[in-house]
């Protein structure tokens, strides 16, 4: 069954607050345009534009009512841009997810007919609770051969700004029970924050040296739904920093996502975890569709193409991406000059990953057409070119993972109301951290095209992962024999 959600930027949320939460405490209303964002199992409505009423468009009398001309005008405006119509009103005295009164239901059902007829999309109805600014939402769809639309509740409404605010439908996304193992975690930030974090749908892209410690920490934190995707396999070269992987994993070239599955199983504290790992690249259509089912994404990859796909999702589908990158600088004659790790959250009104310097747009097609996998291409680049960088160290990867987790907490838990710290760069040699405001450059195309949803230009392509070596190569057999002999010696 397809789930539903709604997402909006904090800018849109602020406009709606100003309109709907009146000083005189009465209800108010407005229409808005939404765009679809279709994942594998979840369809989201991205609020794109608020169509505020003019003076004569509605009447406020304790409740609020609108004139037909306003509805018509709003529906036509939505249809003109290929979007759907949303109808929003407030319950000034309410808190939490709001149920609909019978008058609310009848009003929305009437609006839904015109909305569908004019825009071709179902009506999204929303309510803002005045006491705690919680949102609730439903989609008015016709099912089967019925002519009358019925409301299907959304699972959640998320507001993406300097922090991530999510209102969860308590019936469809009930608060998970806290196990005794979570006592210390809950004591840090309270039951309400724990309930909100635990219900987030978190995707981790990349189960490598930075991703694996993050995966474990998320499972320890009691998050119920964690998905990990990675199309790569463990190699001997990974063992100096790939947490959770063994020599046998490398010899057998096990898929990294299966190592992640082992890590999740060991670390899970949620009472009924729904963790899954997949051999999948976010750069494929299936990978993108899966990503759109989530509320927040960790980017733990170091290639430009997957970073670009996630950048697109962050801006067009309003799913924030917590990104981290590592750079190790060596001295010409050998030795470590310095190491840096940088974290940021890609989100509207922040810095996109390209503007934050986490990847270069011009490198995306190099990655996509396989040029970066071709050793002959890389050899033509200068030795110190970022695309040739292969140095990494376990301690630095763990530090980067910790920094990304810290950034996630700032964004989601919002300690002291400070939210997203911007672009944070850590300098190992000086043991200093540098923060800059996360903002896109003037003219950034991502900043100028927020909330396109399914109207995004498709950043995916066919998976061109290099052919994987057979696990029964001579090298593998020889390594297995050595391992068996070593174990026999240890037992003797």
């Amino acid at each position, binding site marked *: 069954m397809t789930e539903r959600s709604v997402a909006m930027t904090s800018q849109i949320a602020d406009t709606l607050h100003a309109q709907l939460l009146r000083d005189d405490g009465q209800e108010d209303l407005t229409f808005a345009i939404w765009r679809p964002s279709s994942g594998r199992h979840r369809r989201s409505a991205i609020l794109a534009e608020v169509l505020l009423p003019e003076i004569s468009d509605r009447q406020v009398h304790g409740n609020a009512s609108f004139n037909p001309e306003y509805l018509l005008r709003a529906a036509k405006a939505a249809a003109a841009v290929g979007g759907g119509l949303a109808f929003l009103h407030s319950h000034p005295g309410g808190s939490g997810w709001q149920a609909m009164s019978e008058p609310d239901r009848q009003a929305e059902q009437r609006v839904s007919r015109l909305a569908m007829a004019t825009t071709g999309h179902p009506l999204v109805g929303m309510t803002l609770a005045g006491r705690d600014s919680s949102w609730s939402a439903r989609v008015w769809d016709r099912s089967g051969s019925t002519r009358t639309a019925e409301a299907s509740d959304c699972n959640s409404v998320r507001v993406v700004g300097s922090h991530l605010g999510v209102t969860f439908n308590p019936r469809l996304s009930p608060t998970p029970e806290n196990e005794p193992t979570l006592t210390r975690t809950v004591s840090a930030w309270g039951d309400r924050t724990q309930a909100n974090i635990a219900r987030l749908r978190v995707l981790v892209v990349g189960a490598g040296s930075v991703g694996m410690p993050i995966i474990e920490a998320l499972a320890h934190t009691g998050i119920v739904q964690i998905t990990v995707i990675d199309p790569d396999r463990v190699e001997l070269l990974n063992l100096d920093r790939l947490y959770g992987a063994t020599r046998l994993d490398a010899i057998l070239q096990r898929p990294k996502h299966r190592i992640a599955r082992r890590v999740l199983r060991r670390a899970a504290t949620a009472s009924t975890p729904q963790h899954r790992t997949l051999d999948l690249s976010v750069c494929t259509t299936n990978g993108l569709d899966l990503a759109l089912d989530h509320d927040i994404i960790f980017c733990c990859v170091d290639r430009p193409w997957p970073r*670009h796909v996630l950048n*697109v999702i962050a801006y067009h589908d309003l799913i924030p991406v917590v990104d981290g990158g590592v750079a190790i600088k060596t001295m010409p004659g050998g030795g470590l000059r310095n190491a840096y790790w940088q974290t940021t959250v890609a989100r509207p009104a922040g810095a996109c990953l390209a503007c934050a310097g986490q990847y*270069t*747009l*011009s*490198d*995306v*097609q*190099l990655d*996509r057409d396989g*040029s970066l996998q071709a050793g002959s*291409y890389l050899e*033509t680049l200068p030795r110190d070119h970022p695309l040739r960088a292969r140095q990494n160290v376990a301690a630095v990867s763990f530090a980067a993972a910790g920094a990304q987790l810290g950034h996630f907490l700032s964004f989601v838990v919002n300690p002291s109301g400070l939210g997203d710290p911007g672009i944070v760069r850590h300098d190992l040699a000086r043991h200093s951290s540098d923060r800059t405001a996360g903002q896109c450059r003037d*003219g*950034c*195309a991502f900043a*100028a095209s927020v909330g396109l949803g399914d109207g995004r*230009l*498709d*950043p995916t*392509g066919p998976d061109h992962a290099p052919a994987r070596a057979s696990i029964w190569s001579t090298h593998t057999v020889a390594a297995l024999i050595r391992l068996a002999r070593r174990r026999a010696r240890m037992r003797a």
Partner: protein
Amino acid sequence: MDGVDRFVEQLSRLGFEVERRDQLAVVHLAGPSGGGAGEAVALGADPPNDYPSVPPHWLHLPAGLSLPEGNPRSSELGSEFRKWSRPHPSWVGDERSGQRWLAHARSLLAEAA
């Protein structure tokens, strides 16, 4: 409309004659100096599906022209062309991307011999 169509449209709006050949586009451009100075040279590009968000990195030049730092590959346009990987240094993907690509192509053409 795919990336090649959008590329063709952007360059056409700037007054250039652009021909689509399968997944590539060919435009005639005169370089300000260098090997392409004076006369229009046929240049090829293979814009990706999400152009202008992502730029092409291959520049297809007539086989008689070479760029410094070498490393040409055979071109999908045939033996009269060779392709060179020269990513744009600071790409922005919007309605003015066609102009950016042309400026980049001209500067490379100026280095061609």
